[in-house]
């Protein structure tokens, strides 16, 4: 394990996530697509942030980089105070494993593998022993209301249930950051309500959540909304008045 990874005293790191002048260009030359342009964003511990914007505006590109699934073309990304660019591939894998829980629109469960085994998977890569792994995976499955479905395969579960398995899998390592890319995009309204209820409970329990959506109803549940438009990020007026208005990048604590 990397020195300091996950061991930094939390009170000294005010922002779970700190992004400065982040840009992403796909391709090069005439076909280059500037998917993100100089994006600044900070997220504090326990915040529930919704990212909205039109299709093709660059939301997924941003979230993929926050999840260490892709590398930015330029700019800095600090996760728990750690510059991700300094980490090698193996260290990034550890980071994804311990600090990030990623939830996809397409669920992305491993096929032909039971719900329990799917939820256990991050713990396997974390080196957790079999018995503890099982207990924690079962606990995570009960948290999302799927006790009794442990042995079901993805193709034996409804879309809503599959997404709840994916949420359990993202939670099971107790990561600092939960990232969700349109988690309700493939779900009917009842399942959407289930999953959003789950996020509300996680938020109430103090989890940090960044969620992409283009559903206003979904965005309304978040305490803060940022808008991505043509690769640029702007802060929307806060839906609830708990937070003082601020522009991205201005509330950074001195380091």
């Amino acid at each position, binding site marked *: 394990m990397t020195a300091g990874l996950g061991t930094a005293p939390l009170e000294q790191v005010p922002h779970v996530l700190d992004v400065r002048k982040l840009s992403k260009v796909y391709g090069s030359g005439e076909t280059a697509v500037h998917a993100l342009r100089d994006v600044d964003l900070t997220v504090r511990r326990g915040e529930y942030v919704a990212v909205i914007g039109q299709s093709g505006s660059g939301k997924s590109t941003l979230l*993929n980089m926050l*999840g*260490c*699934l*892709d590398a930015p073309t330029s700019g800095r990304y600090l996760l728990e105070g750690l510059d991700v660019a300094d980490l090698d*591939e*193996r260290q990034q*894998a*550890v*980071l*994804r*494993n*311990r600090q990030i829980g*990623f939830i*996809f629109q397409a669920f*992305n*469960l*491993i*096929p*032909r*593998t039971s719900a329990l085994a799917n939820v256990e*998977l*991050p713990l*396997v*890569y*974390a*080196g957790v022993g079999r018995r503890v792994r099982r207990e924690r995976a079962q606990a995570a499955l009960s948290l999302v209301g799927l006790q009794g479905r442990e042995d079901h395969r993805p193709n034996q579960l409804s879309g809503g249930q599959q997404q709840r398995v994916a949420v359990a*899998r993202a939670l099971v*390592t107790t990561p600092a950051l939960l990232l969700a890319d349109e988690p309700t995009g493939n779900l009917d309204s009842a399942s959407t309500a289930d999953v959003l209820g789950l996020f509300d409970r996680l938020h109430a329990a103090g989890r940090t959540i960044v969620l992409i959506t283009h559903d206003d109803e979904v965005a309304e549940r978040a305490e803060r909304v940022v808008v991505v438009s043509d690769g640029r990020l702007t802060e929307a007026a806060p839906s609830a008045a708990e937070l003082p208005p601020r522009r991205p990048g201005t509330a950074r604590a001195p380091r």
Partner: protein
Amino acid sequence: MSVVEIVRFAVRGLIANRLRSLLTMLGIIIGIAAVILLTALGNGASQYIQGQIAGLGANSITVLPRQPPDTVGTDGRPLTQGDVRALADPQGAPDVASVSPVVSVQDTTVEAGRARTDATIIGSTPSYFPGANVQLGTGRTYTEADVTAGRKVVLLGRTVADELFGIGSDPVGRDVLVRGVPFDVIGTLAPAGQGQGLSNPDENVLAPLTAVQGSLTGFGDLTQIVVQARSTEAQAAAESEINSILDRRHGIDDPDNRDYQVLSARQLADVLDDTLGAFTLLLAAIAAISLVVGGIGITNIMLVSVTERTREIGIRKALGAPPSAILGQFLVESIILSVVGGVLGVAVGYAGTLVPLGDFRPVVLPSAVVAAVGVSAAIGIFFGAYPARRAARLRPIEALRRE
């Protein structure tokens, strides 16, 4: 992440594609079985021929006259009784047990009453029997006294006796005419059967040297000299003693230009052994090619497997699988394929050797088994490494985007 987990993932991956795993293994099974079977065939053939050569008389050495290669037109010196006496000298040739002068005449008419046949008449001394590994069937062999007196007595090979006197008959006491000259039959030779040597002893007629010289060939040169070494171990020493004595007597200074030739079962065995070794190597090379083909099959299937599971690899990476875990999973998959295939291949190859082929049985070489299993494990690593590394190097987002 422990090795146990990696192996568990690998086994799950293989079981998820049972039929494909089996077919891939088939390539290795066939390759390894071919190695085991073909080397066993070569080895079995070698052992069979060694056995046949032992039947020729392991201690027997034959000296033949020949035209020296470099002196075209000029004959070399013939083999004579003087050569025989020199070879029989225990001082000059301590490793020689006996020396038998031989004259022979091929395609000679032998008659008994109305029956007649063609045979090779071999005239020699009593030491010829042990020297050339000839066994007595019925009656007696001729003696030194018979040779000294030039008595016209013969021993008939089994085929000759059968043709002249009827199958299984015992002609001892009867008369035969050898090219019109009457001889008394004093014995028969034990049937040698097919393949015991290069000529068939069953078609020979044996008589005292002097009798053959007196009535058929005249008292001239010898056809050959048969020498018996003291033991199988002493054979090589006896051969070099023969060479040095005859070189001196025949005035030879270039060993490549001798006017005589020394042949032995040992030399024959050496030549055949070399030939069989080359043959076995050829078989092994053919088998090795099929192994390589099997290995390429593994690469192919592992590449397909990596491509097909790119998305799964992406998910695993997104969940924090380090490159080593992905590498390990695919590498272990291909090693399992090749090692299980290798072990099954050894079993199939071994079962194949239990089928007898004609006169000889294939004999499995333990070293071939060890090598085959080792090679199949190496194939798994070598041919699985490329696809596994490709899988491990995939960027998570690229892997996830792939459909």
